[in-house]
């Protein structure tokens, strides 16, 4: 079976062989998903067994990550996973309208998020709870979206974390525009430059907005890192339904670098994202990163993955768990002892308990919220509707309706 590289780079003058390089559907699937391995070009610094892999290109980007820093990344991932599981459970108990699990994607999100500086801006999709955590937006600020009591109201400037975007791919263009603004304001060109990162999934790569974002960013040299979390499934549709080429390879067609990183390796995600942001800061952006990972839970709590994928696949990916490999590495190298792991587990439990208390006691928004902030400037039509409805509600004052 030929590799994807051979399909895209047929031997010159190979004659009929070039035609033969056309992949069969089976080859396409194998190349895209490379089973669960990610293929030969996967950047990895920590194996699933927790062994450190040397990389001449990327080791310099994580030279500051000592045992303490690695313990912090471990803590990030454990807390975020615990909050994710608690939120999933709360949805099942009717406390949340829906939940979008991030289980399995902790390394991609924490690694890339921790690569950012405060002056950078991140544009999330709707699963980026881990990135939110790295930007100082905690679960209490996010969870109103999923309890359906707000659409997300954190201070995006303070956190450098744009509001969630639910329409697939819209945020890729929005981020590109923001990055163009950074460039127009002269905020790129040296080590102190600013950059933008935008998160989207493998399914989003089929959207026109993502394609247009690639075109625009290339034309304007926008300092934007496109961070595609390829978690293999767009609800029920596999990656091969989106592309016949590994996603990171698409970048070449737009004229900027694309790289595939092990999305379950927090160290590699940190290193590769730092490198990509560095390219942007210096005015060499954009860059596409494909974080090769796996969504270990459903797309959302309305989804049923048992209808479209085999449990074998999940079992195989469990062996690549992003948290377990850091734990193994720390334990084996003496970077952390049992007392540390127990302490983090206890912290995660109390974090989850606090989140649960918060959600259970969360008030519903007042009806006035329906009418507020539709416009920055007052609208007489809307003002009349607000007055009329509130006056209607006042008619019920004191009654037990």
């Amino acid at each position, binding site marked *: 079976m030929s590799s994807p590289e051979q399909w895209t780079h047929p031997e010159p003058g190979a004659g009929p062989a070039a035609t033969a390089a056309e992949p069969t559907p089976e080859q396409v699937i194998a190349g895209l998903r490379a089973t669960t391995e990610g293929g030969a070009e996967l950047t990895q610094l920590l194996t699933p067994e927790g062994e450190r892999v040397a990389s001449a290109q990327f080791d310099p980007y994580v030279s500051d990550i000592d045992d303490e820093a690695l313990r912090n990344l471990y803590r990030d991932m454990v807390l975020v996973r615990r909050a994710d599981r608690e939120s999933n459970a709360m949805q099942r108990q009717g406390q949340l309208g829906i939940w979008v699990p991030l289980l399995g994607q902790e390394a991609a999100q924490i690694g890339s998020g921790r690569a950012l500086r405060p002056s950078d801006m991140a544009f999330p999709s709707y699963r980026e709870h881990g990135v939110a955590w790295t930007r100082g937006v905690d679960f209490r600020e996010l969870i109103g979206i999923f309890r359906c009591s707000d*659409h997300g*109201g954190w201070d995006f400037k303070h956190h450098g974390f744009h509001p969630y975007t639910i329409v697939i791919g819209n945020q890729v263009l*929005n981020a590109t525009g923001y990055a163009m*603004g950074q460039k127009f304001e002269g905020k790129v060109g040296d080590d102190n430059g600013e950059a933008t990162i935008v998160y989207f999934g493998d399914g989003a790569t089929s959207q026109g907005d993502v394609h247009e974002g690639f075109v*625009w960013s290339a034309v304007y040299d926008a300092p934007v890192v496109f961070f595609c979390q390829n978690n293999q499934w767009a609800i029920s549709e596999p990656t091969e339904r989106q592309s016949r080429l590994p996603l990171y390879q698409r970048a070449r067609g737009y004229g900027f670098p694309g790289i595939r990183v092990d999305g379950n390796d927090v160290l590699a995600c940190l290193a590769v994202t730092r490198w990509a942001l560095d390219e942007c800061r210096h005015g060499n952006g954009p860059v596409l990163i494909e974080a090769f990972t796996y969504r270990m839970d459903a797309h959302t709590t309305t989804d049923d993955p048992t209808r479209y994928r085999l449990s074998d696949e999940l079992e195989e990916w469990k062996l690549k768990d992003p948290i377990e490999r850091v734990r193994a590495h720390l334990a084996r190298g003496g970077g952390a002892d049992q007392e540390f792991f127990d302490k983090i587990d206890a912290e995660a439990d109390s974090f989850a308990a606090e989140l649960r208390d918060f959600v259970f006691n969360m008030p519903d928004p007042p009806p006035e919220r329906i009418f507020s902030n539709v416009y*920055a400037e007052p609208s007489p*039509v809307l003002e009349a509707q607000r007055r009329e409805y509130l006056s209607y509600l006042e008619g019920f004052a004191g009654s037990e309706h």
Partner: protein
Amino acid sequence: MAAPVKAKADGATGAVQNLTIGKAINLALRTAMEANDKVIVLGEDVGKLGGVFRITDGLQKDFGEQRVLDTPLAESGIIGTAVGLAVRGFRPVCEIQFEGFIFPGFDQIVSQVAKLHYRTQGGVKVPIVIRVPFGGGIGAVEHHSESPESLFAHVAGLKVVSCSNAVDAYWMTRQAIESDDPVLLFEPKRLYHSGNLRAEVDTTAKPAPLHASRVVRSGDAATLVAYGPSVKVCLDAATAAQEEGTSLEVIDLRTLSPLDLDPVFESVRRTGRLIAVSEAPSESSLTSEIAMRVQQECFYSLEAPVLRVTGFDTPYPPAKLEEDYLPDLDRVLHTVDRSLAW
């Protein structure tokens, strides 16, 4: 980075200038760009060419390629990147070449432009202007003559305005750029260069409020309400009717969302009759909304049902048939007669 550019207004010799609608918009863009370096213009062909209608003529020469962007050809890209630029603190003015090409950008307009402020409880402002040449009468091929404004007026979070004369063209553009809300400016393309509509634009005058409709001709037999290119049709009809002794009041809506119908109600209470005129198809349109609200507010004053003169509920026809399709003076007068005969 590009050095700051010293801009010069073409022919800007004084506060009062005699301008066509097209030149008035150009001057408004130029003045806004001079006043605020965060104002940028983006769209297809808006730079060297000056736009397909030459509305942005000369702006790139004076303000540079970083403030007047000849973009790649994708409307979602124009509007989607404008959202990001607005979030960054810019005030983007997008040009869509023709209204029939706005639909690839519809998703960004409806999903992001209109909703970001609401979604963030006021945390994100979206001061974007989207300029849309619209309407028929230029003998163009398909997709170049439509009137899709009702689709946008239906979207909460957007402001939709339309000018019918050079003074409004100037000030509405200025006011739209200064607004912290997203504004779609529907420009009557067939009137851009109309010499008959040249007007004295006083750039130092206090402008009319953006969101106020206006009585542009007084009368007492019936009320005509219109916007954009149809205002001229109504004014011409009123002049013709006057020769026959019928006095028609004409109201220019100016803003399509939110609608300022108080002057319309006041007028209908006096005349008892309303004819709403628009090039758009009639079903579920702005004229539907006007008819509904007038019957709600003026029920006991109406001497006849609200009537409409509109395009038909068809796609825009081949241009050889547009004289049949577009509301014209005769169809308006015919409808006035129907109303008066009730």
